[in-house]
């Protein structure tokens, strides 16, 4: 179906890996921040809300540049990670995953927050009278009831990560086999004469992956919603 060169397959596999790792790592944080924004009143809440949403409204290059400054080997966070934990993010695929996770984060948090706000607190009270402590109530009642929103957020974050370009290329560059995703490979092909055919093939793949993600989101969302009505 898709007649790709090994270089192109590498980019496809890398893109999927980066998007998957970004989404899996972002999800627990997304649930935590979504819960805090939905349930807690505190000083600086508007600020936290703003910071979470910044990657959505800032130019991606700016996000990538800030990541480079903070998470590069000389950066405040990056230097610490390198020195004490031996983790290097800049110019590595893990850095690409960080960039994609940050860019997808607002898309994850928003539906999670809305879904948590919509959960009937009275059901949580009922669960607590039945012997469930607060953490158990969260995992057996609150989160399952917010599941459709969580699924929507996770899929949006994953889709965003699949297509991320600006922040990724700024933070981790465009290194074949390490940080060269579908998007950055398409960009590379558009910069060389005769690259149109190869770029076209990758564009098809990108469209295909986006469609699969959307259909999966629709299907999972319906399944989760169907659990609340009928058998």
């Amino acid at each position, binding site marked *: 179906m898709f007649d790709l060169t090994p270089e192109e397959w590498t980019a496809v596999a890398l893109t999927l890996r980066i998007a998957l790792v970004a989404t899996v790592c972002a999800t627990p944080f997304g649930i935590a921040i979504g819960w805090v924004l939905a349930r807690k009143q505190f000083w600086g809440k508007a600020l936290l809300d703003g910071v979470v949403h910044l990657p959505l409204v800032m130019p991606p290059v700016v996000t990538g540049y800030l990541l480079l400054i903070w998470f590069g080997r000389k950066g405040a966070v990056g230097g610490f990670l390198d020195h004490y934990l031996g983790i290097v993010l800049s110019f590595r695929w893990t850095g690409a995953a960080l960039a994609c996770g940050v860019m997808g984060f607002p898309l994850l948090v928003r539906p999670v927050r809305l879904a948590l706000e919509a959960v009937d607190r*009275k059901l949580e009270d009922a669960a*607590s*009278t*039945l*012997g*469930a402590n607060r953490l158990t109530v969260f995992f057996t009642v609150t989160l399952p*009831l917010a599941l459709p929103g969580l699924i929507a957020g996770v899929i949006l974050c994953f889709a965003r990560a699949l297509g991320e370009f600006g922040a990724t290329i700024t933070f981790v560059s465009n290194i074949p086999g390490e940080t060269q995703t579908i998007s950055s490979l398409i960009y590379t092909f558009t910069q060389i004469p005769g690259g149109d055919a190869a770029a076209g093939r990758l564009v098809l793949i990108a469209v295909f992956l986006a469609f699969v993600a959307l259909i999966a989101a629709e299907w999972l969302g319906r399944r989760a919603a169907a659990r609340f009505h009928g058998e």
Partner: protein
Amino acid sequence: MLAVDVEKKLGALQISVHFQVASGATALFGPSGAGKTSVINMIAGLLTPDRGVITVDDAVLFDSDRHIDLPPYRRRIGYVFQEGRLFPHLSVRQNLDYGRRMSGLPRDSSEFDRVTTLLNMAHLLDRRPGNLSGGERQRVAVGRALLMRPRLLLLDEPMASLDIGHKREILPYLVRLRDQAGIPMVYVSHTPAEVRLIATTVVRIDSGKVVATGGVELLDTADNDALA
């Protein structure tokens, strides 16, 4: 034995309630807005009194002077809410099992069968709350509270949201529950006919105060209305 002596200010309503009841079914009876639901929410631990003491048998659930305030999940008090509050994402069987699992009780199929038979819901077990009738939902809510083996069962107008047909359907189960389950019940209602049928003790509450405690004779003839 349930002993309640609490005070709580809720907006314009000053609740100041003191009563003691032995086993059997106690009705908290009074007009809407008298503070009945707030009183049982305080017993369940969902609402914190400003001051006072709540004990069930020898267990102190709340004591403001001694800074004791057990969270709801440690009180082992079954609560049947007005609107049932079944978990929509769980089957009837999972709803029934929830309290037992959360309270760390071992699986007990004979108890499960006894309760499902008592409340006639063996045929509902694999359904979801979303497609139960109002009466069925309340029976499941009662069963769910019973199966956590509570030391006390609270029922907050469990029939208020039901039409008269479903009320007639569920009432005999509540009477059976009183006679067979052996768990003291506190039943909130503003309907004299219901109280007459179910209660053995009546605590009459008005504007946040206990105005009388006694038997069903407390309901005077003016309270005589149809079971509507």
